[in-house]
């Protein structure tokens, strides 16, 4: 740890502690270094592929913990071709066993390559691949922003809104082609839902003040959100149609960015306690807001609960914005890379996040166990607030 570099933050903590006076334990915010990778990438050789198909395979495998190497160094070899159809035969180079041999038909070569990548991941790791999943995000051009959806690698992006206004915080209904998001189309920050199959849109929450940051429960039946109609931004939960609105927090702080536990029982939210910014949890049916112990980082926000329930990814604001992961029950936070607003893939190991490059914002992917990072396809404008469909 480089004490010289980090000492101002310690000073910051000391200042806060000093101003809060006696009765409050002086607290030193310790800055950990970036976490080490916990898994080595799986070496795999690609033989016989070219062009877009090879690029897709390389990308798809890299962001779930593979690395493409020469055949002599490879644990697995994927041999095949991409003529009119993508073909693939996966061999375990130790046992010489053929794990599968398949030909892919229909769709584009690109989608065939994604399907092959998913089969490789499942054959090697036993886990379902993510190469055919979707994302939603916010794209800012000039003074306006719109909601977009795309393949998880940023390709095939399509505008969902054309409001010419400001939008924010897209959130998928799990397992459905339906989004909740914020639009300022009617002058205020209101939450709407949007059925992507029919184009139907309906206002979900349009109370006085801000109606922001929707998060849909895992069963799709309830939506958590932040409303300021009571005079302070507080956490509320309503049914998916907006009825049965219930206020969960009654603080004078600004709650933000709720996320649901996969069992739907608990909501984690960013807030402030005793002057410090914290993550906190509260039963989704109402109850006490409790701080989530997060050791080693400061100013957490934007929590996202992993689909397997084990982790909470979030943004810490310290030197820069940092992508962090903490066990869902609290504990030592691990820092992974500079970035903000992480969203988990359905595999609970890959994160998508926003990275600031020379004042621009781009979407990037992080494979947490191997720490392999790759940018999604670049779009003109600023991309942020990714939400992974899961």
């Amino acid at each position: 740890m480089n004490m010289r570099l980090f000492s101002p933050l310690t000073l910051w903590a000391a200042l806060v502690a000093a101003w809060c006076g006696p009765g409050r334990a002086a607290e030193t915010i310790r800055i950990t270094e970036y976490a080490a990778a916990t898994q080595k990438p799986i070496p795999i050789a690609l033989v016989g592929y070219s062009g877009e198909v090879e690029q897709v395979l390389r990308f798809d495998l890299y962001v779930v913990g593979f690395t493409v190497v020469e055949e002599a160094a490879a644990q697995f070899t994927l041999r095949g071709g991409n003529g009119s159809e993508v073909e693939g035969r996966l061999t375990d180079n130790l046992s010489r066993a053929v794990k599968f041999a398949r030909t892919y038909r229909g769709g584009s070569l690109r989608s065939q390559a994604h399907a092959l990548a998913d089969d490789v991941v499942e054959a090697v790791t036993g886990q379902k691949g993510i190469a055919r999943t979707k994302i939603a995000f916010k794209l800012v051009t000039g003074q306006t922003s719109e909601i977009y959806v795309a393949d998880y690698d940023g390709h095939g992006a399509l505008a969902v809104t054309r409001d010419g206004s400001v939008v924010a915080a897209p959130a998928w209904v799990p397992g459905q082609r339906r989004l909740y998001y914020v639009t300022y189309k009617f002058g205020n920050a209101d939450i709407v839902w949007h059925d992507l199959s029919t184009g139907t849109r309906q206002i979900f929450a349009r109370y006085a003040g801000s109606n922001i940051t929707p998060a849909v429960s895992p069963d799709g039946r309830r939506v958590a959100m932040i409303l300021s109609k009571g005079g302070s931004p507080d956490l509320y939960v309503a049914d998916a149609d907006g009825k049965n609105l219930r206020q969960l927090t009654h603080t004078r702080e600004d709650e933000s960015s709720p996320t649901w536990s996969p069992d739907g029982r608990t909501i984690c939210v960013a807030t402030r306690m005793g002057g410090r910014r914290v993550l906190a949890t509260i039963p989704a049916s109402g109850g006490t807001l409790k701080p989530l112990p997060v050791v080693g980082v400061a100013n957490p926000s934007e929590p996202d609960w992993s689909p397997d329930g084990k982790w909470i990814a979030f943004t810490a604001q310290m030197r820069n914005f940092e992508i962090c992961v903490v066990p869902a029950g609290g504990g030592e936070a691990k820092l992974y890379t500079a970035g903000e607003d992480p969203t988990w893939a359905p595999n609970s190991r890959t994160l998508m996040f926003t990275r600031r490059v020379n004042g621009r914002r781009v979407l990037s992917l992080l494979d947490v166990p191997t720490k392999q990072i790759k940018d999604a396809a670049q779009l003109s404008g600023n991309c942020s607030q990714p939400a992974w469909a899961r």
Partner: protein
Amino acid sequence: MKRFLLVPGLAVAAALILGGVGCKKTPKSPTPLPARTVKAPGPGAGPGPLTPGATVPSDLGPGAVTRPGDVTSEPLRTEEGFAQGALETFEGMIMDTNTLAFATVYFDFDSSVVKTSEHDKANAVAEHLKLKPDHKLLIDGHCDERGTEEYNRALGERRALALREYLIGRGIGGERIRTRSWGEDRPVDPGHNEEAWAKNRRGEFILLLPPR
């Protein structure tokens, strides 16, 4: 880097001094916002049905809706009411962004405390509202880019609400004051430095005039 890191700490300290806020202070309960007056298609209240949005084919494939390149190549749309000087309305009242533009209030980093240096401007707003009982007020809260987006959206709302509470303390009825937060979405200075950030951490007062 060192100097930059010191700023938040000093800002917090300054906010604590200027705001006269101790860590143990028990805040009075917030003043709820007035309910919306116009009937809405959804919960809450507000005008108008929503125009349908885009449909997306099941494979999200190309062809059906806009591609990102199209968006940047066409002029930005202004009919939704963001054109400079356009006659805009907010819940049936006419928005006047000019009259109280002089009174824009600035905030410290990561703070929603209305600083004593800003009181004169807020007091002038209160005076105006006392003289014009049929005028209402919309307060827009804004942030610099040094927070995460949704944290900033909540912080901007808190800044607007803090100004609202201040005006209520100066005798203005809470039912006349609405709030809105833009987070970091509408900076006045797009720069990435302290000078720009200081200008962007602000609360703007928009007069709401009865329709003629």
